[in-house]
């Protein structure tokens, strides 16, 4: 922090001096008032602000001792103004003492003297002792009819003052005053003077409605025991309008009526739609407006300030901390064990009890943060509804969109990445799947094609289905195309299962149309859709029936944040594998490994399980460790495909925070991210979906060069 201008430094000293003088005057007033048994909260607040400002300045200008002193004083004054501490005579004594010392410290600062000041240390100790106060009492809920938005601009302190006044059963008033910008200072002083006699002014809000450029309108929020009439009598004027902020009526049961916060939802469009749906092809149903109106009526303090726009990175930061606490939790349990083994039974039990408590709270916190990150899929679906309307018009096809499960929630980060892939899929469905109206009539289908979007939660995953009642995927056409593009050999065609054929649509360059209805030029690449879904840790499956329709199912992890994972080691490297993808783990008997079609397999409960050695797949450095001991096979399963990953050691299961790899590592396949494993070590998180894809890719056995990578 270089070059603080001399001028600024001079200003600092003079302002500091001024502040100390103000503080002194303040304390004197407080002293006087307290002797009469009155405490003026605004005086305490002023003192707090003064010290607070001084602390800030001291920090800015490098006056360390001044800063330390101010910090402690600030704590004390904060406790006083928030009601945590009583203003007792001894407290005032300490405060007066502080002012004296302040002056001295400032002198030293000005002349850059470094000598020790024992009085300061003594005072600091004294302040610390006083500073510990009782917990802040919670204020009762209230029901005043505030203007929406008035509460949103209160600072923390102002809100506190408001609550205190409400607790003391003061009446609240709003004074709307017109001021001339030229004379506002004086006019304001006058009003403040008068108002102070009646109560406390909490804040001044510019209303934003000005009649001319040189006038301004302010709302003064005030608390007073006096009646509206009394206030009008004293403060009323041409440019002043005074209103009471009334209490809401209580409902029958005595509690304030409060509607539960409603999540927006897109209503289901029933499939038995009237045939006369004609030109208005898509009917995304608007949000229910009646219920939201009811919410508006709820004016309790809390609900108005309920929503805050949150930067997702802050949530990530919080999640990181939670993740690190999870590691601490694990360590705590281990220490408790060691203590027990050491013979200290009682201590161990105590520790374990604390650990359980910690565990519970941490889970709660984790859940809480995750909840904040979760948003309903309806957000994306809504956008898609608009797209569907647009595309259907473009292509001249009537489409009926059916949406279910819009309230299913998923991590905000995932939602943002979903709209593109879903849009591609829908476009494909409308473009290539849904036949033209006359064709549909020919086969007895309703003229409007149906696209159904469905979402639901299944265990640790969210499933999203996109289904259409179109012509289905033309398997022969795909195979032909694939052969033409050289993706598969003619000879392999027979051996392809139905699934394999359908999976071909995910190869780049393929699309499910024939030249005849080449509408958009290039088919929208399903390979891109697949890549995007993979990046989110998900998987996509295709099911299709000729003439009937196509259904694509996306399986996604609910959140990208903390997952339960299996920690394994292959050669020298440690990896984590999200438990959600793991169906089981077993030890490997090398003798039972056979080779089938160029792949290594084992038999698991009667069926064949392909396996892959992680060390070999990732070309890890050989240390000669594996091979001597028994390895392990971790079976991963996604969709209906299974693969066994061979590793050297299984450490166990723990919660990890998955952090995404940087963009520069984006092309590295097989990893879903990385996680911190304790003492700063990092373990890579394996991407089960990508591994399954890579090893089990259609038509390719485990060849030497897994070189036919998808684009």
């Amino acid at each position, binding site marked *: 922090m270089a*070059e603080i201008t001399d001028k600024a430094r001079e200003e600092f000293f003079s302002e500091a001096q001024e502040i100390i003088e103000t503080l002194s005057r303040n304390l004197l007033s407080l002293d006087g008032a307290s002797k009469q048994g009155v405490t003026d909260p605004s005086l305490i607040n002023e003192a707090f602000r003064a010290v607070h400002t001084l602390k800030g300045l001291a920090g800015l200008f490098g006056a360390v001792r001044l800063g330390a002193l101010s910090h402690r004083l600030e704590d004390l004054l904060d406790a006083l103004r928030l009601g945590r501490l009583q203003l007792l005579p001894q407290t005032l004594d300490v405060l007066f003492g502080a002012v004296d010392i302040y002056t001295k410290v400032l002198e030293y600062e000005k002349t850059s003297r470094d000598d020790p000041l024992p009085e300061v240390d003594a005072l600091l100790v004294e302040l610390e002792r006083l500073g510990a106060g009782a917990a802040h009492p919670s204020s009762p809920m209230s029901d005043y009819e505030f203007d929406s938005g008035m509460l949103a*601009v209160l600072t923390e302190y102002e809100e506190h003052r408001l609550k205190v006044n409400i607790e003391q059963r003061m009446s609240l008033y709003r004074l709307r005053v017109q001021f001339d910008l030229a004379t506002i200072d004086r006019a304001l002083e006058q009003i403040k003077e008068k108002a102070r006699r009646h109560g406390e002014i909490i804040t001044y809000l510019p209303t*934003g409605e000005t009649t001319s450029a040189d006038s301004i309108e302010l709302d003064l929020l005030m608390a007073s025991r006096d009646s509206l009439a009394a206030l009008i009598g004293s403060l009323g004027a041409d440019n002043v309008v005074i209103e009471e902020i009334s209490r809401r009526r209580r409902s029958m049961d005595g509690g304030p009526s409060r509607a539960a916060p409603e999540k927006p939802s897109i209503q289901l469009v029933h499939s038995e739609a009237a045939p006369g749906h004609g030109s208005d092809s898509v009917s995304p149903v608007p949000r229910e407006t009646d219920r939201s109106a009811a919410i508006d009526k709820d004016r309790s303090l809390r609900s108005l300030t309920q929503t805050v*726009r949150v930067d997702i990175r802050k949530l990530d930061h919080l999640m990181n901390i939670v993740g690190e606490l999870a590691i601490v939790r694990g360590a705590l349990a281990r220490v408790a064990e060691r203590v027990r083994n050491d013979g200290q039974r009682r201590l161990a039990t105590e520790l374990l009890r604390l650990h359980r408590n910690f565990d519970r709270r941490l889970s709660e916190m984790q859940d809480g943060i995750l909840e904040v990150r979760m948003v309903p899929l309806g957000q994306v679906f809504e956008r898609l509804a608009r797209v569907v309307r647009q595309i259907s018009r473009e292509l001249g096809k009537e489409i009926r969109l059916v949406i279910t499960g819009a309230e299913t929630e998923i991590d905000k980060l995932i939602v943002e990445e979903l709209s593109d892939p879903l849009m591609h899929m829908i476009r494909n469905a409308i473009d290539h799947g849904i036949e033209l109206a006359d064709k549909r009539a020919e086969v007895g289908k309703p003229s409007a094609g149906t696209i159904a979007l469905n979402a639901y939660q299944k265990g640790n995953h969210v499933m999203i289905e996109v289904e259409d009642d179109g012509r289905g995927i033309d398997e022969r056409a795909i195979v032909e195309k694939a052969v033409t593009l050289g993706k598969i050999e003619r000879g392999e065609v027979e051996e392809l299962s139905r699934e394999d054929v359908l999976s071909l649509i995910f190869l780049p360059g393929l699309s499910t149309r024939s030249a005849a209805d080449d509408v958009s030029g290039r088919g929208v690449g399903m390979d891109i859709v697949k890549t995007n879904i993979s990046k989110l840790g998900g998987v996509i499956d295709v099911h299709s029936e000729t003439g009937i329709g196509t259904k694509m199912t996306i399986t996604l992890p609910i959140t990208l944040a903390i997952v339960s994972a299996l920690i394994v080691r292959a050669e020298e490297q440690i990896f984590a594998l999200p438990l959600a993808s793991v169906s089981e783990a077993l030890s490997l008997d090398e003798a039972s490994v056979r080779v089938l079609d160029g792949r290594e397999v084992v038999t698991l409960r009667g069926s064949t399980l392909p396996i892959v050695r992680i060390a070999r797949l990732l070309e890890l450095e050989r240390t000669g460790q594996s091979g001597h001991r028994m390895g392990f096979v971790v079976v991963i399963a996604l969709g209906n495909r299974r693969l066994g990953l061979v590793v050297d050691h299984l450490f166990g299961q723990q919660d990890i925070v998955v952090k995404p790899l940087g963009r520069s590592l984006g092309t590295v396949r097989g990893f879903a991210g990385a996680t911190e494993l304790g003492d700063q070590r990092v373990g890579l998180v394996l991407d089960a979906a990508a591994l399954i894809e890579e090893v089990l890719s259609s038509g390719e056995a485990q060849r030497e060069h897994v070189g036919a990578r998808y684009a």
Partner: protein
Amino acid sequence: MLRILVVEDSPSMRAFVRGALETRSEFGEELSVVEAASGFDALRLLPRGPYALVITDINMPDINGLELVRFIRSSELHKGTPIILISTQSSERDQQRGLSLGADAYLTKPFTEEALCKLAGAQLERARSGSGAHG
């Protein structure tokens, strides 16, 4: 000429901010700092804009920084002007409020000249490149 409105009731804080902004020539253009000693002062000075940037303290008596932010955002002239809030370390809530009311960024006291300049620079750049309308 880029004009920056600094709303802050402490004179030395204003001097500090002015010093920091005016002596660092990384903004490529001439900078001039306009000082307001209170929320009311700011109300008076705002119509004399437009300002390229507003820096305001949150905790000021009378009209506080949050109220100022809302007022600024509701005005035609300054709807898209970047706003940087100065807040205290312990008040996460005020910072969040400020952001949700439309402020673009915040500084927590005590902050360095460097932090101030980087933040201010980034905001000025953003507004200049036109991507700047808040939100």
